């Protein structure tokens, strides 16, 4: 099983390093911009010019954008962890099973003494290193930025935001694995996965608009990971993390169940 994880990771290694470098530079630039941005104009005053709903949509739980925690939530975590990284994992995971079936490399894999569930789990576990690397890179980028610019902010809260991001991304990876098992064409699987990220993002951001949307937003994984609460309000809640872990296990179990029954044509 671990051989499958390592090979799957190695296949995506170069892309991951380039993406990590992008995320690192993006993080450093955002942190470096903080001083000059808050000195140039009052961000909170700027936000107040928009309808109240706007602030709730794009910066839930952020007390003030003028302080560092709120700033990096809205400029870095909100976009990267809610959209860019989930879309990266949609592309990463969609070919897990669909790609193997489509390219017919799965045929020889089935000649070896491996159980079907081990193929799914092996593929899934390959995201572990990527999730760790991306969060470490983000943490390093913010830490280096803080030291470089002499910003007074406790890095502990960034550590918490990154640690809680892991189950959030694991849940997405489990969902994309299920799509890859259900769909036998990796391009279709990637498209469906990316659409789901976008729908979840919209459900979460629009949840403040009505009670109905708020109820629906519980279907979005973004509801269970709130970097603003950690970075701006300095509140860490583990209940949502537990919910994400349960969802991850359920999705992975469903992926295994579907793959057990599937005909590999």
């Amino acid at each position, binding site marked *: 099983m671990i*051989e*499958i994880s390592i*090979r799957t990771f190695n*296949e995506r290694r170069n892309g991951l390093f380039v993406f990590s470098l992008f995320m690192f530079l993006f993080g450093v630039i955002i942190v470096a911009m903080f001083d000059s941005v808050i000195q140039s104009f009052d961000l909170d005053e700027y936000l107040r010019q928009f309808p109240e709903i706007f602030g709730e949509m794009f910066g839930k739980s952020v007390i003030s954008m003028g302080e560092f925690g709120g700033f990096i939530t809205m400029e870095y975590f909100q976009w990267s962890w809610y959209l860019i990284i989930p879309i990266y994992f949609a592309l990463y995971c969609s070919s897990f099973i669909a790609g193997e079936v489509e*390219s*017919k*490399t*799965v*045929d*020889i*894999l*089935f*000649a*070896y*003494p*491996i*159980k*079907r569930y081990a193929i799914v789990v092996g593929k899934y576990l390959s995201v572990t290193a990527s999730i760790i690397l991306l969060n470490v890179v983000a943490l390093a980028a913010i830490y280096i930025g803080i030291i470089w610019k002499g910003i007074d902010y406790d890095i502990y809260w960034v550590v918490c935001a990154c640690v809680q991001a892991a189950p959030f991304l694991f849940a997405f990876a489990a969902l994309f694995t299920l799509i890859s098992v259900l769909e036998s064409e990796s391009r279709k699987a990637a498209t469906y996965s990316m659409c789901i990220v976008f729908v979840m993002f919209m459900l979460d951001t629009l949840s403040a608009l009505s009670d109905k949307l708020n109820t629906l937003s519980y279907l979005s994984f973004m509801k269970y990971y709130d970097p603003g609460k950690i970075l701006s309000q300095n509140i860490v809640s583990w209940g949502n993390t537990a919910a994400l872990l349960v969802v991850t296990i359920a999705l992975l179990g469903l992926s295994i169940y579907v793959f057990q*029954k599937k*005909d*590999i*044509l």
Partner: protein
Amino acid sequence: MKIIEVDSLTKYYEERTMFKKKRNRGIENITFDVNKGEIFGFLGPNGAGKTTTMRILLDLLRPTSGKAKIFGKDSVEESKIIKEQLGYIPGDINFYKAMTGGELLAYYEQLYGLPAPLKDELVKYFDIPLNRIVNGYSKGMKQKLAIIQAFMHDPDLVIMDEPTTGLDPLVQQKFYDFLISQKKRGKTIFLSTHILAEAQKVCDRVAIIRNGKIVAIENVAEILARSGKIIKVRFKEAVTIDDLKTNDVRGIIEEDGTFTIHVYGDINSTLKKISSHPVEDIKIGESTLEDIFITFYNGERND
């Protein structure tokens, strides 16, 4: 000792569209056994159901009904244990393109969980460049790599779906020699092919499959022994198939003025019939499996 036991195996493929569900025939009621130390050929045209049967044995497909056992173990429930002693060459060979041949074999060794005892010997025998990226391999080289991965763990049974596709005649012959050497070591081979000459060269028994059903299971040596002669004859005048029929003729095919007559029993009555017409050219030889297949099965259309 039976290595493969297939009992009433049936597979229908379900094709679902938004409005209806359609069932397509894969195989129907297939039953056969493969004995230890035997090279068993699965013969039939494309789409007959050869690959479907093999994919069920590999647990890539789940049967609609019926059972298959390998080494006495259920092919679905005990698939992992079976594969500890099984090698497989799929019909459509695809490897991870970015890996070298050497990396791929090392990966398959890891999946197997043990070093492959025959790897070096087979790499030398089939002569493939291990340090090259597989994407740059020719079709024949990929085929050879597939053969190596299937045999390198020295499995007791190897299932092969049209294994000589893409191999040049010299390598094909090398491969046949290798198969026979494996058989001598007590290994069992189950191969599908539509090349009858190949089946004749290496197989002990063959099952002939058509339209998803087995139409015959024959011992190759026996069928050849009782298959008689093949007469290929051209005449100087117009002759019909009926003009050449005798009680000893099993089948006649006419193609571009050449009659292929498959005779079993006494050849003289047929020769007498032939000589009653002016002959332009005639050849008499032993039947090959291909002749038998064509006259027995395709030849039915002419009867």
